[in-house]
């Protein structure tokens, strides 16, 4: 039985329908991500779960055995980390974290132990008496997390918690978050617009667009089998080719659109023999070559159709230059049909 059930949740702001009868379920202890472009409704949905935003009548939200639809935020036992962290500037790290426990009426003796435990968990020992403005972004993030976790909420909501941080810290904290989430086995809903981040941390991803969930699945399922063109374009650097594109490219009639991942397209020297696999060979020109670190991305143009091709940065890729002609192979098995 699912731990969290969101059923037919809708929300309207002025004339706009921001959430359109959204339904989803979450298993206990899982970390799921709401992924989508800006304005798709993911943050709104999160706020609805927290109770900070009301929903239209007809929707229902159940956490554990409890129907939280009509409960105030205080009563929902939901923890939330905001994009801006919302740390209390006038309180120390210790007092920020202890806030929720104080509100519950716990005595100092009792909550001090819990606060110290969570400070160790998020790796902030030694900073208890500092104020938020004295901490770095990553440290503030961890205080916000600790503050929400120490009250042992039923679910944890994270609203783009890592957006304000620089790339390196972000990567570290993604791992940290996952580690802490698994250690506490806490059901978590993560909101982000960064698909790489979503794939790194999630058990399950819900892709949202314009107030609806357009695909749900594990990171692998979504990446390898996008359901439609929107997901294909969003989740990776997919090449999306419709029937007309295929005709220009390989002079063959295909029905419908297909998505091809950049890493499955193979580039061969002009005089190389055919690859022994079902697929299509054709000639193209390398328009641009970009180094992305461990991946090299080439922009190829073949018969007027542009393609992205990704390769791992090994020594054999250095034979490919801008402006040269190459032989291109697309295996049939890797073409994902889209509806």
């Amino acid at each position, binding site marked *: 039985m699912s731990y969290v059930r969101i059923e037919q949740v809708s929300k309207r702001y002025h004339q706009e329908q921001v959430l359109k009868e959204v339904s989803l379920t979450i298993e206990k202890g899982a970390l799921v991500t709401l992924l989508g472009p800006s304005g798709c409704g993911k943050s709104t949905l999160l706020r609805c779960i*927290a109770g*900070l935003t009301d929903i239209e009548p007809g929707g229902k939200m159940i956490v554990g055995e409890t129907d939280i639809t009509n409960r*105030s*935020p*205080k009563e929902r036992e*939901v*923890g*939330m980390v*905001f994009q*801006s962290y*919302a740390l*209390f*500037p*006038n*309180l*120390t790290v210790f007092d920020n974290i202890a*806030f*929720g426990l104080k*509100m*519950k009426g716990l005595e100092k003796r009792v909550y001090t132990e819990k606060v110290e435990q969570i400070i160790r968990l998020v790796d902030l020992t030694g900073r208890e008496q500092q*104020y938020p*403005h004295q901490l770095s972004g990553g440290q503030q993030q961890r205080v916000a997390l600790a*503050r*929400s976790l120490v*009250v042992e909420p039923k679910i944890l909501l994270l609203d783009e918690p890592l957006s304000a941080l620089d790339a390196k810290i972000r990567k570290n904290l993604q791992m940290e978050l996952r580690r802490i989430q698994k250690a506490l086995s806490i059901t978590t809903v993560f909101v982000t617009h960064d698909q790489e981040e979503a794939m790194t941390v999630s058990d399950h991803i819900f892709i949202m667009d314009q107030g609806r969930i357009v695909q749900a699945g594990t990171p692998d399922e979504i990446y390898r089998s996008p359901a439609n063109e929107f997901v294909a374009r969003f989740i990776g650097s997919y090449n999306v080719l419709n029937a007309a594109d295929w005709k220009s490219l390989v002079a063959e009639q295909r029905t419908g659109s297909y998505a091809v991942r950049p890493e499955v397209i193979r580039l061969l020297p002009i005089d190389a023999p055919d690859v022994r696999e079902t697929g299509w060979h054709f000639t193209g020109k390398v328009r641009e070559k970009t180094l992305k670190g461990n991946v090299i991305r080439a922009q190829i143009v073949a018969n007027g159709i542009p393609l992205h091709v990704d390769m791992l940065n090994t020594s054999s890729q250095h034979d490919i230059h801008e402006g040269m002609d190459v032989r291109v192979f697309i295996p049939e098995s890797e073409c994902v049909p889209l509806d």
Partner: protein
Amino acid sequence: MKNRLLWHKALTAIVLLYLFIPLLATFLYSISTDWYRTVLPEGYTGKWYGELVSDPRFIDALGRTLFVCIVTILISLVVMVITVFAVTVYLPRLERLLQGIAMLPYAVPPVVTAVGLITIYSQGPFALSGSVWLVIGAYFVAILPYMYQGIRNSMRTVDAISLLDAAELLGASKLKGFWLVVFPNILPGVLVATLLSFSILFGEFVLANLLIGGHYEMIQVYLVRRMEENGHLASSIVVCYFIFISIISAVVLRLGRSAKEGRT
């Protein structure tokens, strides 16, 4: 490069001179015996200050002004903080209306306000004209824009709504959340608005004169009366005014700093 810096310094120096020379001249006039024929005063004396301090009417006027200003500001603080909190948290749709109301005092010249108030309150159930409470009421409205803006901007700066959301999710009621987490952080901004309002009220002449004038002589009215008698005395009053406001500013700024709890 060096020339440009010199130009900036020179410009700043000229502006500062322009602002301070009148004050300096006033100060000199307040300690001089005579000064109408020569570039600098003919003689120096402290007798004007002596006369001032020994005049009981001066002390009384000062006390009355302080009373009116402090009472007005206290009432305004309580009313405005509660109002801005209530509108921001419970009734965000009324924000525009509140903003409009708070800006109205700008549109009405003090003389018009005074005449209107006297007309309404000189008869009927609220015969307040001639009473100090009429002045307090008028003063409350006069500082409305400054108190409203100061409080509202403070709340925006600290992102009061997010803080309240966070506090609520952690189990605090809206009121408790406001008191523990929003109020301490908007305090510096609120204190600045208070100081600004105080300075404005302390120097406000039109309403003071027209609404009660000699019935309840405040420092502004006292100053004008003395000015007609003797320029030196008037100058010494102005200098006292200035020193007094400076002391208040220093105190409030110090308070504002310590209210930030640990911030340098």
